[in-house]
């Protein structure tokens, strides 16, 4: 149950009752967004969220997601450079 699922909010059915529809790779399910409504930046259609047991727990920050990936891309370049250096000295 601790394995959260990322999905995209595609519809807010009932803002008062915090009911929304989540799309996970084409599979749609109702989720509760009650834990994300008080944010200064409330959840909206198009947002990516992490869902546990039918509740959206956190928004997924696309910029931060890209930053994490940029870190490993840098490593890749670094390793490529080492490979090149290895090739150069061989």
């Amino acid at each position, binding site marked *: *149950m*601790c*394995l*959260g699922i*990322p999905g*995209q909010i595609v519809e807010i059915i009932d803002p008062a009752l915090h009911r929304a529809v989540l799309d*996970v*790779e084409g599979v749609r399910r109702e989720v*509760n967004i*009650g*834990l*994300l*409504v*008080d*944010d200064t930046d409330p959840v909206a259609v198009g947002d*990516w969220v*992490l869902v*546990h*047991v*039918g*509740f959206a*727990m*956190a*928004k*997924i*920050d*696309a910029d*931060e*997601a890209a*930053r*994490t*990936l940029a*870190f*490993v*891309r840098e*490593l*890749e370049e*670094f*390793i490529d450079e*080492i490979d090149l250096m290895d090739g150069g000295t061989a």
Partner: protein
Amino acid sequence: MRFVDEYRDPVAARATLAEIERLAAEQPARAFMEVCGGHTHTIYRHGIEHLLPASVELVHGPGCPVCVIPMGRIDDAIAVAHQPGVIFTCFGDMLRVPGSNGSLLRAKAKGADVRVVYSPLDALRLAGEHPDRPVVFFAVGFETTAPSTALTLRRARELGTHNFSVFCNHVTIVPPLKAILDSPDLRLDGFLGPGHVSTVIGNRPYRFVPERYGKPLVTTGFEPLDILQAIVMLLCQLRDGRCEVENQYTRVVRDEGNPRALEVIREVFELRPHFEWRGLGFISQSALKLRAEFAPWDAEVAFDVPGVRVADPKACQCGEVLKGVLKPWQCKVFGTACTPETPIGTCMVSSEGACAAYYNFGRRIPTRSTRVGVARSAIADR
């Protein structure tokens, strides 16, 4: 799947592994505990253990909510499920958890109306559909799932649904972490912090780990690249002589957590004075119960639960596995008497349990050879 596939990229994983190897080569052997069962699942599922250099060891922690439920609570759940008219609802992975006399699945076979739900809200809905029958939800989980139960209880109160109740077994992550850090056989160099618990509680509650115990902690996501990057971050801290709480899972975890989730937890629950953890024993203020205002929805008030403490089966070494003292395959009954089909201990039940993860994904040739190696050294020691 977006936010999943890109964190499974094999080229990026190779580069990160090369960085781990480089960092590991310049420092002594390290052991890191992944606190969360979700991490254990990822590590085995993707074979990460076998990719790491020999000097970097991952030790599996107590963060699987199914695994830490003591037998006595399962017996209590089964007793409630057998009450006349009761519809007993739970998450799928609770069905096979063995009590002292069978599991909920066995109770169902004997005629109890046990139903699997995906969400506590599904259980509340069932209560609306069956107004003449008591519907009980078996609530388990750390701070990740506690807000969901809390919001469901708040909704039950709004709706005035009085045939719905919760058998609350929610636990909190910091007390068992402390118990592990206080353990005399502690041999850990750092922690992969639980990513999804942290979406709720944030990173601040872990500060005592570096400050009081001198161990770094990196809050970590659940994809292979997340785990590998967090290992890089831990190795960098140790190399640089730093000891901090860092956040690898920034796309989801904010330092302050989710204030609304924390607020609803505080509104609905209070701390129990103590709670028994499988393998770790009684830990004070480590679990949640419903506040008095929510007593009408508290299954422990509505039903007589035996509340008897039951010792774990002698053969079962879940406790040692949960504390990271034993690897799953070092347990005497692993894979023989204890399998996911007929589990003896809880660690073999949930997909987040170390033993089940190891059984389902980990039994490959390198593991077997390690096992033979251990057997050999045991013989040689005699």
